[in-house]
């Protein structure tokens, strides 16, 4: 049997790769497959051209891009999931023609599939824990300030603060455990410093896939979710798009290059610091940012494409708080920040060159050269603390991925490898606690400081290599997708093998039952694993995902229910206790350039300066892999689609019940221990005792419900609404203050004392209704649109958390609840009333 199989595979491989029918095509056109009864696009189904024996697939919009040798009559056969095989003979008359194929029009005739038809390599996306949204569905989502990327916040399993910084928590994983990609190229951060703006232009986006769990082995370096943005891949004529708002302007231009190629350039620039200048104090520069994206495609041959990519974003801000005292607690800022200064700058750039080759009809090869770099600069001071550091993180590498249909309709392989040289440079001075166990360090004490500044200087180049294989085995309604991923990261000196897989069965009724599981690893943050200012012995974080779901589609409707449980181990946490008996003083040794001088100054005439000791003893390491956690829950997703450009309504309901629990496993100092003096050795032993309890993670929300409704009335008007309901995040109760032990510039500072019950309390639930109206004005050259949105239509005072004022002792008014800013106050006679927050904007497309 094995010999037969081997022989069969070899034959298929050989024939399909080298001798399959692969004529030099000459004419491209689009076949738009539509179900006329439901007016719904029929996506992701095969379309066969009988004359050429080529098979293509429709995309999310129901469009298959088909190549034929010349114009004329051709017979097209589709394999519809509900209606079986449908065939029609159509005439193709010119290049780029778009023809509609109705799945039940009169005259269609059933036919049986023919053998010997070959398949164009196509990546098959997992069905489990993946949600996809189209640009047109989320671009005009109310409350998202026109940023399509914010649309994913309304999907199941996604938990985001109402006005957050773009930091998503997906199925209970930490915010930084997710991985963002544009066309499989990494981006360091999805939103700017002012998170109303994303770092990618809306109209460059085609679709966004969010993988919330048990995703396949071709995705790495994430223990949370994957946000995969796919950009548009079709430009027919020169055009553009601009959007104006009070704080930024964005523009995109595009045009064709030769036959089948194109270029797209997009960018954004902010001017908040100019438009709001009268309201901004002189010593504050609000976030200034800009970004740019460039993508181009060159059609080298009929089967080979070359893509060039360049993405980048940069932002900075500056703030300082004067020391001038007014002694008025109602006007002065919190005493903790009096005299503080901060200057922050962050940027990233990613470049890619990608070659895609459809080798024959069953094999597709994709090779990408990648370079990416993230730069962060921080310069600030707070009391006696001073920080000044510049870090550069990134990698350059090559990614190779091969898609191979081994056995027609039954066995598919996705094999890939990525070899990277990871780089990390850090330079500057960092303030660290002299005694990390000090429960209340005083940052304002310059005489007997609790902090010391240590020089940090890292320059690391390390191999970060990955390989993966994902198989798809399909027979009848059954599908099994096992996969393995191997990662080696030299900085952690680890090689990990992650098994992952899904298994599903699709009933003839279009009911899909699917289950999946996988192991995932993620490298630590660079400041955590820094040899000079962190713990260079850290390991990768680890997660296990388990999921089970049922999906039912019917016409334009999708109904999906999933349950999940994720485990998180080896989580990097702050560790005040971890120390190393000795370590090399990397910051100093990295600066040694002349060995002779080093011997003379340091060995023969040693210095008492700690920063000039080649070896440091008993050094704190600040971080460990002690953290653990788990999350569990279930999600319900009901969606009704509307074809792009069609009138009608669309929307979805997403509901998530979840629980996210964690534990840093860092010994909690008891009251008895607080009132006792132990030797350092005793404390070290006591600190090994894990007296911790699991606690709800800071971002845990039990219920998250989104109801999204959109209605396209006609080509001139569109209406949208979203109602969001969330359980408030947990918090730790403040039960007192420290009596005001410290002071800053003469102002007493009261530090809060917390209850031992970590995250035991929650505020009232959060809910609000946002609505939006778009008015389109059409011209021969394109269209203009004006939108108006009202956030929090019923002007609810939604809790945003509790705030503690360090200027005042504990009282009934300190701490106090604060509310989010989704309403305005207006005077009505003698009364102040709350009204919704309004927003408007304008866009032009040509």
């Amino acid at each position, binding site marked *: 049997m094995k010999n037969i199989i081997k022989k069969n595979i070899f034959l298929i491989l050989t024939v399909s790769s080298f001798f399959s029918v692969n004529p030099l095509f000459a004419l491209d056109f689009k076949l738009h497959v539509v179900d006329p009864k439901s007016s719904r696009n029929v996506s992701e189904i095969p379309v066969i051209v009988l004359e050429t024996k080529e098979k293509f697939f429709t995309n999310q919009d129901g469009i298959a891009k088909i190549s034929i040798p010349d114009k004329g009559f051709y017979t097209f056969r589709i394999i519809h999931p509900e209606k079986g095989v449908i065939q029609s003979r159509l005439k193709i008359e010119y290049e780029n023609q778009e023809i509609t194929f109705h799945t039940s029009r009169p005259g269609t005739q059933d036919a049986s599939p023919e053998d010997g038809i070959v398949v164009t390599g196509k990546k098959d996306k997992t069905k489990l824990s993946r949600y996809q949204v189209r640009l047109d569905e989320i671009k005009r989502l109310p409350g998202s300030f026109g940023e399509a990327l914010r649309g994913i916040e309304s999907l199941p399993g996604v938990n985001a603060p109402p006005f957050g910084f773009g930091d998503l928590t997906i199925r209970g994983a930490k915010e930084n455990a997710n991985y963002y990609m544009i066309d499989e190229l990494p981006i360091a951060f999805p939103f700017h410093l002012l998170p109303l703006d994303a770092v990618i232009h809306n109209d460059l986006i085609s679709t966004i896939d969010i993988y919330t769990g048990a995703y396949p082995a071709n995705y790495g370096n994430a223990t949370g979710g994957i946000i995969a943005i796919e950009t548009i891949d079709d430009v027919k004529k020169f055009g553009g798009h601009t959007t104006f708002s009070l704080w930024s302007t964005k523009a995109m231009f595009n045009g064709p290059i030769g036959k089948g190629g194109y270029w797209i350039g997009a960018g954004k620039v902010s001017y908040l610091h100019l438009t709001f200048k009268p309201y901004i104090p002189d010593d504050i520069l609000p976030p200034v940012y800009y970004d740019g994206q460039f993508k181009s495609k060159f059609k080298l041959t009929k089967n080979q494409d070359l893509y060039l990519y360049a993405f980048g974003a940069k932002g900075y801000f500056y703030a300082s708080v004067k020391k001038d005292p007014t002694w008025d607690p109602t006007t002065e800022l919190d005493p903790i920040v009096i005299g503080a200064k901060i200057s922050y700058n962050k940027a990233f750039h990613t470049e890619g060159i990608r070659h895609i080759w459809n080798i024959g009809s069953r094999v597709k090869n994709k090779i990408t050269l990648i370079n990416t770099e993230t730069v962060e600069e921080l310069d600030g001071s707070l009391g006696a603390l001073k920080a000044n550091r510049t870090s550069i993180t990134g990698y350059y590498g090559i990614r190779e991925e091969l898609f191979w249909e081994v056995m027609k309709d039954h*066995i598919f392989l996705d094999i890939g490898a990525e070899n990277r040289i990871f780089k990390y440079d850090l330079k500057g001075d960092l303030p660290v606690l002299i005694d990390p166990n000090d429960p209340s360090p005083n940052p304002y004490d310059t005489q007997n400081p609790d902090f010391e500044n240590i020089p940090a200087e890292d320059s690391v180049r390390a191999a970060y290599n990955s390989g993966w294989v994902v198989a798809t085995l399909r027979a009848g309604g059954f599908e099994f997708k096992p996969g393995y991923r191997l990662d080696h990261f030299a900085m952690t000196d680890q090689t990990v093998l*992650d098994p992952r897989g899904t298994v599903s069965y699709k009933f003839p009724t279009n009911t899909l039952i699917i289950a999946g599981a996988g192991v995932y690893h993620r490298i630590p943050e660079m400041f955590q694993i820094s040899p000079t200012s962190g713990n260079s012995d850290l390991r990768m974080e680890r997660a296990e995902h388990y999921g089970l779901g049922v999906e039912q589609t019917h016409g334009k409707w999708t109904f999906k229910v999933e349950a999940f449980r994720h485990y998180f181990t080896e989580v990097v946490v702050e560790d005040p206790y971890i120390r190393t008996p000795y370590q090399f003083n990397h910051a100093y040794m990295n600066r040694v350039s002349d060995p002779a001088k080093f011997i003379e100054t340091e060995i023969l005439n040693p210095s008492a300066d700690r920063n000039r000791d080649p070896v440091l003893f008993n050094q704190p390491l600040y971080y460990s892999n002690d953290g653990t956690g788990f999350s569990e829950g279930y999600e319900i997703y009901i969606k009704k689609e509307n074809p792009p450009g069609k009138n009608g309504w669309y929307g979805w309901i997403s509901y998530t019940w979840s629980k996210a629990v964690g534990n840093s496993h860092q010994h909690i100092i008891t009251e008895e221990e607080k*009132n006792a003096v132990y030797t350092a050795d005793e404390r070290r032993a006591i600190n090994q005792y894990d007296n911790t309890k699991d606690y709800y993670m800071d971002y845990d929300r039990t219920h998250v419900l989104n109801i999204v409704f959109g209605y396209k009335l006609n080509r001139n008007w569109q209406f949208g609404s979203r109602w969001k309901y969330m359980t408030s995040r947990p918090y730790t109760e403040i039960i007192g203050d420290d009596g005001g032990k410290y002071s800053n510039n003469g102002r007493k500072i009261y530090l809060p004392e917390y209850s031992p019950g970590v995250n035991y309390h929650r505020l009232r639930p959060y809910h609000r209704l946002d609505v939006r109206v778009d008015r389109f004005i059409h011209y021969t050259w394109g269209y203009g649109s004006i939108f108006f949105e009202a956030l929090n239509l019923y002007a609810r005072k939604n809790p945003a958390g509790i705030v503690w004022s360090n200027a005042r002792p504990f009282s009934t008014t300190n701490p106090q609840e604060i509310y989010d800013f989704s309403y305005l106050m207006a005077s009505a006679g003698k009364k102040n009333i709350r009204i919704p927050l309004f927003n408007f904007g304008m866009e032009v497309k040509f």
Partner: protein
Amino acid sequence: MKTKTIPFILTLLILSGNSCAFDSKGNEKDKEEQQAMFLTLIKPSDLNGTCITAQDAALSCMNSAGGAVVAAQYVTILETGYKISIPAPQGSSEICGVLPASPYYPDPTNNPNSLDYKTYSEQSKICSLNCEKIYWTTINTEGNCTGSNYPAVLADQTHSLYMANHSVYKSCIKNCFVTGTVIP
């Protein structure tokens, strides 16, 4: 077709069932836990013995400085500072019978009636006494236990735990309460 597909599926099922994750870091010893365990095993626990050794060193210095008169002054300082009554003949054994038990020891400023009062563990008292022994031995070796120096010697003793100016004593105390034992 199905007969050919099944072995593939079975093979992959078996492979996925035998999934193994190897972690090259997993076998490394945790220095932190190892050190803590080691320390708990090697620690001395003889409070009285350490105290007697320390007081022997102190009284030896006093006797070198001025004989019984100075030794008596030293005892008085202890009685005053730590609010204890040392029985006759006020030798090391008598001192150590009451000194470590004083709620003020080893920090005379640590008032048990204060809200900020902290109890010292037995190990911290042993460590402090050991530092005292090192201190007295050192100044004796340095030749400072002489008649002309004894007022200064005694003055040092009136200083509380963290206020002693001698570098050897300060270094020892730092090792006790901040650095801890460093195991190479």
